[in-house]
């Protein structure tokens, strides 16, 4: 076991899979000699050679097309989109092509592509570097969408994603890259996609979150505990498909739930979770299921980020409304 940050755990997962399967290819903008702008691919080109870990020209759509074409030759591409805010440039490759490869070919071809990309706010980036655009991905059938919140989960989920025979969008929160370390096994291990994780058990309220918001929710839960409320925190980990079973089991136990997302409120993952809860567990509910989300503006200029981004205080406030309903 070693102490790793999330970015180290991600590099480690890539290394393990490059070693494990010669069909794994890692590529993207500046990921070779430079090791990626966040160093996620640090040392990999040196270790595995330029044939398997390589830089591409600067064009996201081209990177998407390249991944699709390589997968047709039996490779397992793991391209990086440098920032997920650049995803608009590669939308057709992802939603119009990659997600439909199996469907379109009647199952003759499949596209075992894992697109990794950093996203998320709180680190004062220029525009288009921090947006939470995950619901663009979850709206597209054919994709699995993963958002880890811890180093341990990141490694296990990334290995599972790469081994998956279908396209996976793997979103890495910028602020979590180096925010803390934890024990991460050095060998390969997998965490099943589509399975949420109960990060904290409780009986009065369920908080459902993913990405950075898992940590804001855990902090809120600790504070609420001091006030006598026992709060359960579920980390979705995979936001498409949702782990309905874990969500519903928890809500049936607590009778109260809130859903927390960093993204804007409109058409978000939280809305989807709320709908699933009301469809399946309305009779278990003691209160409406509320959402904590960012306001419905475009991602703010960095100076307004602090207020715009949901934090543990917002979570507490909403939690109390539900607890006292």
């Amino acid at each position, binding site marked *: 076991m070693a102490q790793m940050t999330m970015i180290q755990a991600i590099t480690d997962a890539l290394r393990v899979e490059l070693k494990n399967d010669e069909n794994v290819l890692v590529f993207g903008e500046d990921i070779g000699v430079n090791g990626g702008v966040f160093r996620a691919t640090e040392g990999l080109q040196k270790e595995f050679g330029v044939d398997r870990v390589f830089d591409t020209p600067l064009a996201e759509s081209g990177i998407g097309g390249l991944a699709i074409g390589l997968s047709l030759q039996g490779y397992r591409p793991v391209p990086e989109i440098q920032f997920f805010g650049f995803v608009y440039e590669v939308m057709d490759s992802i939603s119009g092509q990659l997600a439909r490869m199996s469907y379109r070919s009647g199952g003759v071809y499949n596209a*075992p592509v894992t697109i990794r990309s950093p996203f998320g706010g709180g680190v004062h980036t220029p525009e288009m570097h921090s947006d939470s655009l995950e619901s663009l991905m979850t709206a597209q059938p054919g994709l699995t969408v993963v958002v880890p919140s811890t180093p341990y989960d990141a490694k296990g989920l990334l290995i599972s994603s790469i081994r998956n025979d279908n396209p996976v969008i793997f979103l890495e929160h910028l602020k979590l890259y180096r925010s803390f370390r934890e024990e991460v096994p050095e060998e390969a291990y997998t965490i099943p996609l589509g399975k949420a994780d109960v990060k904290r058990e409780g009986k009065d309220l369920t908080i459902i979150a993913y990405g950075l918001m898992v940590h804001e929710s855990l902090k809120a839960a600790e504070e609420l505990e001091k006030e006598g409320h026992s709060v359960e925190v579920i980390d979705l980990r995979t936001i498409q498909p949702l782990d309905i079973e874990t969500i519903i089991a928890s809500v049936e136990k607590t009778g109260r739930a809130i859903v927390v997302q960093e993204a804007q409120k409109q058409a978000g993952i939280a809305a989807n979770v709320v709908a699933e809860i009301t469809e399946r567990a309305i009779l278990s509910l003691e209160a409406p299921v509320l959402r904590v989300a960012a306001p419905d503006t475009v991602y703010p200029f960095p100076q307004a980020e602090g207020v715009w981004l949901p934090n543990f205080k917002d979570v507490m406030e909403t939690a109390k409304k539900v607890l006292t309903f």
Partner: protein
Amino acid sequence: MSKKNNNMFDPKQTLVEIEEKFEMFQILNEDGEIVNEQADPKLSDEELVELMTRMVYTRILDQRSISLNRQGRLGFYAPTAGQEASQLASHFALEKEDWILPGYRDVPQIVWHGLPLEKAFLFSRGHFVGNQVPEGVNVLAPQIIIGAQYIQTAGVALGLQKRGKKAVAVTYTGDGGSSQGDFYEGINFAGAFKSPAIFIVQNNQFAISTPRESQTAAKTLAQKGVAAGIPSILVDGMDALAVYVATRDARERAVNGEGPTLIETMCYRYGPHTMAGDDPTRYRTSDKDSEWALKDPLVRFRKYLEAKGLWDEAKEESVIERAKEEIKEAIKKADATPKQTVTQLMDNMYKGEMPSNLKEQYEIYKEKESK
């Protein structure tokens, strides 16, 4: 002009010089005469007859497809008449192990690459079985998003290169497609990786209704390859021999590790853009149609072969009969294909296990379909 002494760089002059270099490559003129002896590929008699057979067959396939569409027996269809040399002579230079990433008008090439005709019809009808290509037939279903096939071709070509295969990835788009960002990204990626790709732009003069002149200030589409640093050529797309030679040479360079080529084939589509209500009289004149009809790829190739004593009316008739017979058989097979179900489509969405949300919906549709 002395370049040495001229210390003022003249960008306008440079452009003119580059554009003037893109003369149209031709071997067989409109009268079916070899005008470029040196470039004559000297195909064997058998090969010449086979290429002619394919072009005649495909012209019949186009005519039958249009009429089947009008009878409501085919769905989406993009007519091909006028583009036979461009499509089939380029394909004629390929090998079985090569990969084809077609646009939606490029059904003939994938049929001649091995896709059973009934599957082409099922594709037209919107049945997934049409897209299930048999093993060993290295083609993708026709691409609907214009340009998307170009970047994927860069990827397939890179894969072939990494696998050490002596094969190429070939893709097609039209004049309109050459305006897409993916077009540039595709040729640029393949150039940067020096991968074995052949990019063919079938310049049939109109992108639906928008004329080639409105598409770009570039004098030729072939010259776009210059910016990507890849060999490029403008070819008479109504001349089967010229198209064949350009593709053959591109393939040779590609498998020899010399990277991709961009080929512009100057051609014309006689029919509408697709059979879904396009009316070419709104955007082009009959004068223009007749002008291009004189350049017809079949007419000139027929003349050439007749002069060589390789083709006559009886041969033509027998190809036409064979085409009609096989089309009839293929339609029968397409008719006999069981209807597709929503649960089948659900099955095709993912390799292996489907996600929980779809699994749940699968059960609902299975129930519906059992009634």
